[in-house]
């Protein structure tokens, strides 16, 4: 599984990245995490409000910071 956090360095983007790290640790699964800050790549995902969360190439959330449990549900789901 691969999770990408889309964001150009805003405070919320950093928060979301930390949330995702905690969720991955909690899940105990092997998950590849990548922070995407290249604006052109972010636009390829059709995301216009950061932070965005992408799981295995699919955008699951934009413009908000999710809770650890919400991200965990995506990892397990």
């Amino acid at each position, binding site marked *: 599984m691969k999770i990408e956090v889309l964001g150009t360095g805003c405070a919320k983007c950093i928060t979301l990245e930390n949330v995702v790290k905690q969720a991955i640790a909690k899940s105990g699964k092997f998950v590849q995490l990548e922070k995407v800050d290249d604006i052109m790549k972010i*636009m390829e995902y059709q995301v216009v*409000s950061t932070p965005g969360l992408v799981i295995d190439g699919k955008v699951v959330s934009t*413009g908000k910071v999710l809770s650890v449990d919400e991200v965990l549900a995506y990892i397990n789901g």
Partner: protein
Amino acid sequence: MWQNSVDYLTYDLFHLEGHLGEAINFFIYDTVKIWFLLLTIIFAVSFLRTWFNTEYVRAHLQGKPALYGHAAAAAFGIITPFCSCSAIPLFLGFIQARIPLGVTFSYLISAPMNNEIAIAMLFGLFGWKVTAIYIGFGLLVAIIGGWVIGRLNLDKEILMDVKPIETQLQANLVKQSFKERSKEAWDYTFDIFKKIYLYVLVGVGVGAWIHGYIPTDFIAQYTGEGNPFAVIIAVIMGIPMYSNAAGVMPLVEVLTGKGMLLGTALSFMMAVTALSLPEALILKKIISLKLIGIFFAIVGSGIIAIGYLFNFIL
């Protein structure tokens, strides 16, 4: 009712009198009232906005006729969240969907000006009439400002080469359960409240001090009819105060009570929210200084015109 309780607390229970009593009474009354309204209004706005996200707005505006585009972009500015930190993906994303530059600016002017904090503060301090005037004229500035920018053919001032998408985007409302929406709205409200409650406290505190101690003549002389340049000075002063709407607006309320003209107050508050230096610095990465200058000049003169118009009518 709330005023009676605060009166009882300050005058009967603690026997405070004179300037001090008046200042403390005002402080307690205003702080609690504004906190309550902030929580209620931000919750209402953020609950409503769980249906719309910026991706929805973009898809909705794609390929629409120009006039409708300006009006809809300005209106969406009220209900969608805006953070100057996400101005770049928003701006480029709109251009990518071939939304005209002018329509994009209508949104960029309206979104920060009609944010939920400003609306809640205005409602709490000035009542619904001034709030409606503020929103109405805010939309007008956004629509006309965006239209003028669109007419100036400034597309070459965008510094990044954006490859347009050919397909029609799907405008999907966000699907969530009622419970999820309430939770999200409450989390957001609490988050915002944590960030601004202190500003409200300080703003109302300084306001209370002015209310109790500074004579009316003094304020009227500098911000009232005695100073014909008050509107222009107010707008220039408003530019560096971005994101402190919560702290600045209580001061403005006290000043209007003491003789500051309402038009001057409106212009000042619009400048605080709409003309933001941090946002300009972020946009500088993707659009030329010339376009930023034109953007500020058009919005600034619109706001100044509103101020003078109001001072003249009222």
